[in-house]
């Protein structure tokens, strides 16, 4: 027992963090260590992400600059090649590009984050926590999505100004549809992160998946309805209707919204299961944290 004076003694009834989660009622005294609840965990994980975001803005700014550079190539290069045809479809291209930057941000941030945590030896510390890694990973995912929305919003704003385009930007609908669309990609990020833990040399190759997102975003959901079950595809079609045609969230059919939610949750859970089994196998092979 750690016997500093402000530390509770062995005779003090104490609860475990999992108890605390089940019974969030705070303990009666405030001068000793209190069990952390999921509220504290949420605060800690999100605050860490926030601190790194504001303290090291170079990463975010770099991402924005690269995104804008590629868009400029696409826009000005495309205008030279395709002329009026590109100008006519510019709204669709901007929406697609916006969703692509969101997808790349969510995917690479979570898969790279897992790789970094393995390298730093901090992933192990999350595995030996009384909370388990799952809630930490999901909270990290939420933080990455929020962060990606902030940077992609800047990219979207610049694209609209540069091209002189107007889009329907109803915030609740855009955030909900785009958020659920990239949740499926977050699942892919978890899977890729897990596979990288197991086979470290594959990590860089998995980054190439980002270019596959372009195919998913432009999937022909009307001609080939089955593609709606792929990540991003259905969400991309809905986002086009939202931002180009001005369709509001409540104007979509329940079936469409249900499918959007199901694809998001399905791929997120699937990705987490892959991550879980990959890290479990890494623990069996003794390669977790084998930096």
């Amino acid at each position, binding site marked *: *027992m*750690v*016997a*500093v004076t*402000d*530390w*509770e*003694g*062995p*005779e*003090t*009834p*104490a*609860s*475990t*963090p*999992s*108890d*605390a989660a089940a019974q969030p009622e705070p303990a009666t005294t*405030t001068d*000793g*260590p*209190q*069990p*952390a*609840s999921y509220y*504290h*965990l949420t*605060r*800690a994980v999100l605050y*860490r992400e926030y*601190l*790194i975001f504001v*303290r*090291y803005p170079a990463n975010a700014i770099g991402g924005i600059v690269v995104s804008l550079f590629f868009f400029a190539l696409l826009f000005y290069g495309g205008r030279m090649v395709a002329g009026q045809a590109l100008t006519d479809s510019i709204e669709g291209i901007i929406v697609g590009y916006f969703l692509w930057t969101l997808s790349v941000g969510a995917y690479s941030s979570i898969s790279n984050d897992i790789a970094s945590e393995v390298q*730093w*030896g*901090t992933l*192990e*510390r*999350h*595995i*030996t*926590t*009384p*909370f*388990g890694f799952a809630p*930490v990973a999901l909270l990290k995912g939420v933080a990455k999505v929020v962060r990606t929305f902030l940077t992609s919003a800047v990219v979207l704003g610049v694209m609209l100004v540069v091209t002189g385009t107007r889009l329907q930007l109803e915030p609740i609908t855009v955030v909900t549809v785009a958020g659920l669309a990239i949740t499926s990609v977050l699942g892919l990020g978890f899977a890729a992160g897990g596979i990288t833990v197991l086979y470290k040399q594959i990590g860089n190759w998995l980054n190439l998946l980002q270019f596959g997102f372009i195919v998913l975003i432009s999937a022909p959901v009307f001609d080939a309805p089955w593609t709606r079950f792929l990540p991003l595809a259905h969400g991309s079609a809905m986002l086009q209707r939202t931002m180009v045609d001005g369709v509001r969230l409540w104007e979509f059919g329940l079936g469409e919204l249900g499918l959007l939610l199901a694809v998001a949750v399905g791929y997120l859970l699937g990705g987490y299961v892959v991550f879980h089994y990959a890290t*479990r196998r890494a*623990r*069996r*092979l*003794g390669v*977790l*944290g084998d*930096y």
Partner: protein
Amino acid sequence: MNASAPTDSMAGLDSSSQDDGDSTRSDAKRVPALVVEGMSKQFGTDTDGVMAVDDVSVTVDRGSVVGLLGPNGAGKTTLIKCILGIVVPDAGTVEVFGTDIGDGRRAVYANVDAMLEGARNDYWRLTVRENLRYFATISGVDPDSVSTRHDRLLDRLGLTDKAETPVRDLSRGMKQKVSLASVLAGGAELVFLDEPTLGLDVESSRTLRQELRRLAGEDGLTVVLSSHDMSVIEDVCDRVVVMADGQVVADDTVAALVARTDRDIVRITSPSIDDGVLASLREAFDVLGVARDADGTRLEVVAGGDELYDLMAHLRDAGVTLEHVRTVEPDLEDVFVELTDDAGGLGEPAEDGWSP
């Protein structure tokens, strides 16, 4: 820290002992901090696999500091990782403060933390204090409720002035201290420190050892410390578990281990030991090492009790002039070499100029 384990252990006591607070506490104290039974782990396939940990059983009492000593590849780190669940063992059970971690009860981890070899263990882009708060939360403690403890920890480790500095801006020794602080931030009662002084300069290593001694002595922390540095083990540990080839080859106090070695070594320096004398010595005694330089010949000979008289008589009869005679007390390193049969395994070169 959560006192879940003591509570669990108290729950198992009969009602009469629960009536008596003192005896309850002492009973709870008797539950070992760690019991490992029959732990085994093989990497690779059955035919060309490596048995990294081979049927290891270890018990660590509360408040003790146990050293895990062994040459590189002896299985120290794998054993620690198996105990923590970072590596899934093939066989064996682990009880932490009386609770079997195999039950999937993650709450047990609230009392355990580890500083692993070669890892940062914390976030370099966060400040020292931010790390302490983050890892306290991760280990199940509301960081606001232990801020006083964090202040004290920072003070003890000489990090108060650096509390608001990002870890990446600190020296290596400081970073190692932050790593230790972040491990202790959640109030874990059982901590594993894997090569905590590796790569530190002499001064930083000494400070860290002092702090470990103090934390163990004053705060009753239970520490399992792996190292291949004898001085760290001798300085800090109450008990040493020596591992070789994945197995425990000795488990005792440093004093008992040293005492049980029966080698009494005499070191002789003389200008007049020629090859003939050396050959006769080798025939009659166990000559461990020979070194020749401008001052003459230095010998290390195993000679305890009557053998010492015989050795002196032998040298006198051979007309050897003795310049210097000294008995060499065996130390932990001698014991270690004897136990593991691996003089080169420590990464330390043999004394210059000596050959067997």
